[in-house]
């Protein structure tokens, strides 16, 4: 229990720390890639990924800093990709919006809304075909459910009972547009039931609740074969794309943010650890270690070289 709390805190702290560094140095224009920040959603990603096995696979969107860090624990290839260096997870060709780590189970992050969802279905299909026991969790925003391909996918997954979790990271907005302006549907349970999919929902910044919900979903999948849809609410701290706040834009209130920040997942979990009797010294040591890892990642990225110009033409095909 305590162990789990610490593990989840570490995952979250890595994400937060890594993004704080991005905020810190983005203005230096070394990272020429559009940043869709994860700040605010750390508990979701840490909780879900924490509940998965290492062999399980995930897919994400353009907003996948958290997912990459939680799934891989790596900071070097992460930052090198942000810096556009050959040491990056895609040799600098993909940038912030298209992180991947095939060996560690992050299969694809697509910047076209909802487009990773059917790809995740394909990955789950393959796992079932090979009967290898791996599960797939696909992360997407509430906006993805606007797209028809989402509905096509849940239908097929429900029909074929594919081993997949749909993780909706619901921040109530697609860019600046509220969910109510885009989606008429509301009652998950009833709706997804109809597609043979079990729905779960949590409105929390506690990664352990998310962890447990995910475990329940995985159990449900295991015992019934039914895919699960998990909706987790959170608040996007920063602007849609970029590293700044945007409460002056007028489409949402700073008050809302402040209410959420009261329950900031990092602060809450840290308090919980202290309450569980974890010593401040231990926590600080962990934090220190993670911060050092983040700094090491940035150092690595800075030292890595830019790809040679000829690399522009490489990697288009596997078999030339």
């Amino acid at each position: 229990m305590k162990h789990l709390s610490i593990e989840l805190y570490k995952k979250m702290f890595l994400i937060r720390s890594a993004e704080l560094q991005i905020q810190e140095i983005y203005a230096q224009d070394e990272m020429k890639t559009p940043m869709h920040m994860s700040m605010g959603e750390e508990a979701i990603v840490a909780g879900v990924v924490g509940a998965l096995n290492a062999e399980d696979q995930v897919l994400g969107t353009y907003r996948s800093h958290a997912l990459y860090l939680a799934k891989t624990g790596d900071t070097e290839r992460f930052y090198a990709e942000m810096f556009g260096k050959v040491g990056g997870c895609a040799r600098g060709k993909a940038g912030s919006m298209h992180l991947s780590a095939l060996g560690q189970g992050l299969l694809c992050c697509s910047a076209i809304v909802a487009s990773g969802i059917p790809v995740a279905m394909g990955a789950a299909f393959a796992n079932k075909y090979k009967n290898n026991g791996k599960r797939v969790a696909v992360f997407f925003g509430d906006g993805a459910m606007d797209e028809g391909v989402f509905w096509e996918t849940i239908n097929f997954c429900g029909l074929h009972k594919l081993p997949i979790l749909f993780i909706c990271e619901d921040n109530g907005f697609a860019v600046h547009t509220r969910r109510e302006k885009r989606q008429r549907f509301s009652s998950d349970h009833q709706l997804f039931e109809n597609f043979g999919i079990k729905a779960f929902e949590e409105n929390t910044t506690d990664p352990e609740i998310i962890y447990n919900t995910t475990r329940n979903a995985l159990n449900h999948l295991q015992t019934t074969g039914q895919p699960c849809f998990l909706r987790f609410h959170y608040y996007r701290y920063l602007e849609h794309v970029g590293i700044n706040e945007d409460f002056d834009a007028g489409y949402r209130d700073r008050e809302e943010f402040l209410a959420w920040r009261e329950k900031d997942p990092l602060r809450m979990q840290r308090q919980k650890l202290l309450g569980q009797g974890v010593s401040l010294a231990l926590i600080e040591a962990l934090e220190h270690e993670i911060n050092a890892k983040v700094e090491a990642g940035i150092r690595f990225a800075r030292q890595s070289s830019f790809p040679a110009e000829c690399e522009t033409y490489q990697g288009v095909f596997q078999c030339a």
Partner: protein
Amino acid sequence: MRMITYCDAINEALIQEMERDPSVFIYGIGVPDHKKIFGTTKGILEKFGPARCFDTPIAEDSMTGLALGAAINGLRPIHVHIRVDFLLLAMNQIANLISSFSYGCGGAAGAPLVIRAIVGRGWGQGFQHSKSMHGTFAKIPGLKVICPTTPEDAKGLMITAIRDNDPVLVFEHRWLYWQTGEVAKDSFTIPLGRGRVVKEGKDLTIVATSWMNVEALHAARILERHGVDVEIIDPRSIVPLDEEIIVNSVNKTGRCLVADNDWTYCGFSAEVAALVSSRCFGRLHAPVERLGFAQTPCPTVRRLENVFYPNAEKIVRRVEKMTGLAPIDLSGEVFYSHENRFKGPF
């Protein structure tokens, strides 16, 4: 060697690859039903079972995503579309995801998948069931695009496509299904990116795609009787393209007609015309000419369909103009009409 149909050649390629490699599976709307995609998927369900040969909902977008995800996880999907027009619903997956998967992970892995799309004229199918579009897909970097014409090419290129670690789109013209040719029984491959000299000649080069090779050959026979010796080049693969075989031929003949089974404007015929005009500059006796679909949506009524589609007669007429040949009396000539083989209903 054995003579078999193009349809059977494809069927054989699919079965041999599925026997060889358990990661190959085939799916799509109607794939396992009794019509068997014009016969090309016959016996597959029976042999390999529903896990490797299955039908789908009518949901091209997500079903294409399925191919990509399965390919990432080590399978080799073959997704079949009975009309290429339906691929337009999957354009996002194809052009935004599949084409850039390898590049987007820095070349770490590819997406070995095959998309079979059937094209070609039917029984007054009209503007929503008549497109070809190999040029549209060829324009997107990261996709390989092939248009096999002969049964041998159909088998050899299909096997290569399945084994290839990149996404390959295969355009199959339905009229070719009934064409026969010699095909080895054993499995064999034909490399992508190598064209084929369909017929040697010295006076003019016709670069023809897919069914247009059949029409070009017919035209060449007529023209031969009137003293014009045409060379026909089938590029077979649109991406990668065998530029050399085209350029060498036109350097020899000095004249080039591109007969493409698609619209000409911004199409593959424009690419070939641009390529030839540039690389054979100074060796051309006349401008490169192009034949393709009329620049209109495809009409349904036969009389207008005949205007819309290129064929042997139009090739003859164009070559006459290009070579200064007097108009040939074609009144006795019987041109290919699918009607003679295949009556309605569609």
